[in-house]
């Protein structure tokens, strides 16, 4: 059985600075992959590359056997000042990625501040429609019942937790075949963290494959099949669920004792 998502020797970053290099990542059908690593080491950049927001420099991104990016190396930039944005074709299209069913729920996204919850949810199935997948309009409210009473609120009046719920709900309306959740519990109170964690468990229980990024090793250990440890721009270890150590051990491994 081939993997659902196969990332091969992927390198990328923000021109001209390379952020990650030669990353290999595989997510099986029906699996949940965890991504753990220190802040500022390029996890989010990697995920933004996989979902096509920024162009990869080299490597392959295969989703269900289909290559999402233009294969080959990026064009080398000989001049520091030429505007390559108009000289170079984009090598990846986020629209295509989303329509294929690879859905990225970005970290701490403010979504659309002036659109109401109902309006936001009404445009969320665009990717599902574009990819010909059915999408259940009631799903957001079964996952997060409290969104129902906030239907007419603009996104900017939502609390951090509600906004995160809305973001995940939008992701689910896109009928994901693989859902990327980038730190869904970032900056939330313990109570809300639990609530969102429950929702992620529910999504996982429904059989949706997930790439989950979080800073809480315990949370990851409950959910993921494999944990990918990401530091200094590459995946340094892949741990099967049984081998995932606790938070302190993992951090000590990554940073050593301070000297």
């Amino acid at each position, binding site marked *: 059985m081939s993997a659902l998502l196969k990332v091969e020797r992927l390198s990328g970053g923000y021109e001209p600075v390379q952020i990650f290099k030669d990353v290999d990542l595989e997510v099986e059908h029906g699996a949940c992959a965890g991504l753990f690593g220190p802040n500022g080491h390029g996890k989010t950049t990697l995920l933004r590359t996989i*979902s096509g927001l920024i162009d990869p420099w080299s490597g392959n991104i295969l989703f269900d056997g289909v290559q999402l990016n233009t294969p080959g190396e990026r064009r080398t930039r000989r001049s520091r000042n030429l505007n390559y944005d108009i000289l170079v074709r984009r090598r990846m299209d986020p629209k295509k990625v989303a329509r294929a069913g690879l859905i990225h729920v*970005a970290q701490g996204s403010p*979504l*659309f501040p*002036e*659109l109401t919850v109902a309006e936001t949810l009404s*445009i969320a199935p*665009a990717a599902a429609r*574009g990819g010909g997948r059915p999408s259940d309009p009631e799903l957001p409210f079964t996952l997060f019942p409290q969104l129902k009473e906030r239907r007419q609120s603009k996104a900017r009046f939502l609390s951090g937790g509600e906004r995160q719920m809305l973001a995940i709900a939008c992701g689910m309306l896109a009928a994901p075949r693989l859902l990327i959740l980038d730190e869904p519990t970032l900056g939330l109170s313990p109570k809300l963290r639990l609530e969102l964690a429950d929702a992620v468990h529910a999504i996982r229980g429904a059989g949706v494959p997930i790439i989950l990024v979080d800073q809480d090793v315990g949370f990851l250990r409950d959910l993921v099949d494999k944990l990918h440890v990401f530091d200094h721009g590459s995946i340094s270890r892949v741990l099967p669920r049984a081998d995932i150590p606790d938070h302190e051990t993992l951090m000590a491994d990554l940073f050593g004792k301070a000297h």
Partner: protein
Amino acid sequence: MDLPTLISILQSGLALGVLYALMAFGLAIVWTTLGIFNFAHGAFIAAGAYLAWQFGNAAAFGLGYWAGAVLAVAAMFVIGAVVQLLLVRPFERHRDIVLLTVITTLAGATIITNLLNVIWGPRMKQIEPALDGEIVFGLVHMRSQEAVMIAVVAVTLFALGWFLLRTPLGRSMRAVAQNREAAQLMGLDVRLLYALTFGLAAAVAGLAGVFIGSIRFMSPTMGDDPLQKALVVVILGGVARFTSSVYAAFAVGIIEAFSTYFVGLYWTPAVLFGLMILVLIVKPEGLFGRRQRSV
């Protein structure tokens, strides 16, 4: 001041207001969606007027007023999308996009204005109005052309409002305006939406040009003055909501009408700009709005 004077002042304020609303709509929607200020907007107005003249007038293709107007608006939609492609898209991901597009749209305005000059010459022209004569309704005396204009603009504004608020495409345009990346991740075609937005703004500017060209004389620089007024409107209204620039447009139209009557034609622009600066000092987000996008 007697009642007929008051009515005639209000009436001319209304006529100005609908024109300003049309012009400000395009500026505001481009500003909120793409985060840039389009200095070529005035040139769009002039281009729309000349195209309508070319299609409609007996001296040119002679298709008639309405056919000319429709064709001009359609052509302006395409021109707007092309201008976006050439002048704005190159900087889509550039951190200095605001400044760079100021100069490219200024240059674009120069190019369009001079092209109009090259093609149609500097001589004054006028679009033959759709209707002649006056409508009398009680104390209200109105040129038929003005009545047509007010009616068409009202319908257009309602249609635009309905489009932006109710249709999926309009909602997508608003979504892109507020968070480009989230829109991309939802699978929306951001580039297409940008081009559509710019096209729509240009088409509406073209419509404004058609009306201006049929009540005043046309010249390649006829858009400069409306552009400045639209600027005042957009600042006074703020850009947070579609409706706020419409309110501001009518406010500016009526203030201008009163100011012209009481202070005189010469001082009116100074009054407007002074008022605008005052508003900006006191309430930078506009009279009716919440500041939403300060790049």
